């Protein structure tokens, strides 16, 4: 009697002690094999579908298609594995249907996120890699899954926002357009030579290679207040180079204006102190606020 026969005899004794027959074990092994096979198939076909779909569709759509394919194959494998164990698939599917309805009611948030994901795909307000602002969150879109959108913030954190929240938020896509307008507002003193300042700024903008000639830049004085006059600058730049141009131009314009002797107005506060001799004054001290920092006005 060989060693293998001894092992087999030992195993059958062990199984009979556990109350399992050899045929039951065989069925379980077959079911596990089926499931493992379908799992491997799901991984392979999911990847294949994603790669093929990415040629025709967007990256997000390809990802979703790949994941749906994998999920369907895994479900089919699971159903077949159960069938090989003697379970009735049709009743399983029926039970699955009822379960799905029950789960649907129980997991409204999940379903809502899923549907929002689908609507976001149809609406396509952004694609992976776009810099966006979703509600109060700003960053680069890293991934769009069926339930959530992942943003990498500019300081390197990863945010997960549920698709439902994304769908209901105001979305600003900073790369959806080919060109963006740069806007500056410079505060100049009342006695400054506005024409000279405009001419200097126009010259800088015309010489800058990343400021569009059409639509051309506009420089004008459109506001006057207690502090001075406000010179507004509008210039268009390709979206791809918007940020470096925006940051660079401000310093260049400021430096060139100062170099040409054009002072930039400084917000002032004049405090008038009246002594006791000023009878009839509203109070011993009166503070007159002449200026305030106005948002967006550079000085």
């Amino acid at each position, binding site marked *: 009697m060989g060693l293998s026969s001894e092992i087999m005899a030992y195993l059958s004794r062990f199984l009979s002690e556990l109350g399992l027959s050899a045929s039951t074990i065989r069925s379980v092994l077959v079911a596990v094999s089926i499931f493992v096979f379908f799992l491997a198939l799901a991984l392979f076909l999911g990847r294949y579908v994603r790669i093929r779909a990415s040629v025709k569709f967007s990256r997000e759509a390809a990802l979703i298609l790949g994941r749906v394919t994998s999920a369907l194959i895994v479900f089919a494998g699971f159903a077949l594995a159960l069938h090989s164990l003697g379970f009735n698939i049709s009743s399983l599917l029926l039970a699955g249907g009822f379960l799905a309805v029950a789960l649907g009611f129980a997991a409204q948030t999940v379903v809502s996120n899923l549907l929002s994901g689908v609507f976001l795909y149809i609406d396509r307000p952004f694609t992976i890699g776009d810099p966006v602002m979703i509600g109060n969150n700003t960053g680069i879109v890293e991934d769009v899954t069926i339930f959530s959108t992942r943003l990498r913030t500019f300081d390197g954190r990863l945010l997960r926002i549920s698709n439902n929240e994304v769908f209901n938020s105001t979305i600003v896509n900073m790369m959806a357009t080919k060109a963006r307008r740069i806007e500056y507002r410079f505060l100049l003193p009342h006695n400054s030579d506005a024409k000279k300042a405009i001419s200097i700024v126009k010259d800088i903008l015309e010489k800058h290679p990343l400021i*569009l*000639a059409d639509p051309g830049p506009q420089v004008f004085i459109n506001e006057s207040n207690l502090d001075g006059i406000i010179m507004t600058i509008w210039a268009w730049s*390709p979206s791809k180079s918007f940020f470096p141009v925006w940051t660079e131009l401000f310093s260049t314009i400021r430096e060139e204006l100062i170099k040409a002797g054009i002072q930039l107005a400084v917000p002032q506060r004049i405090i008038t102190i009246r002594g006791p001799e000023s009878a009839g004054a509203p109070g011993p001290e009166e503070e007159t606020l002449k200026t305030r920092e106005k948002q967006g006005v550079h000085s």
Partner: protein
Amino acid sequence: MTYGMLSEGELIVSGYRVRVKGLEGGFKLYTRLPLNEDKILASVMVGEGTDLSLVPVEPSTGNLQGVVECVYVKLETPIVIGKEAKVDVRITVPVDYAIAAMGPEGDFNVIDAFSDTESTPKLALYGTPTSGYICRFHNSSSKEPFKPGLAEALLRINNYSGRIATVSRAVIPLSLMEIYYKPGTWQANVGIITMNLESEKAAEIIVGGMPPTADFEKSPEIVTEKHLISVQKLGYLTFKAAGFKMLWGY
């Protein structure tokens, strides 16, 4: 200094010093420096079996690379064309410079590219910010004398719009442009650009033409994305065309 093969030594090209120095083992060292500084802007070692050539390329090098999609040629004098009429106009198109390492079988590798320092390249938006194109802007005059940094082209306008039309601009996608140069000269040419006026607002641009004479050679292409050729999007609408559609007026 002209287009064509670069020999050893130092040459002045459009405000830069271009140096080619022979090294041991058949190597060549290529360097590019500003005129008045010793700051190296580009430096590449080239092995045996390649020749270095100065060639004109699409005007999208340096910080314009990946930004510029088309050339926007504004005609200094607009042209009025009658119904069903054809007009040929000489225009100029800006080109940048490239140093290409050319193999014996016509294969090449662009090792450096730069634009003309004598004038600031300007950009323009053709169309809307959402669906338009970022273009290299160029004012073209039929009386403009030819100079390095420009390529000549023949703009052939066919008026199929069914009415008298005024043409003041032509937009040429870089992905369609083929540039030819005459070695030993500064002459560059883009061939014939056909502009078919289809309606009051739309025109089709078809680029493709033979070089003016047989002694012109084809420049290597640095813009290889061909997506602009066949499909264009305007909002949710997608257009398929043989050439490039100018959808926002001509």
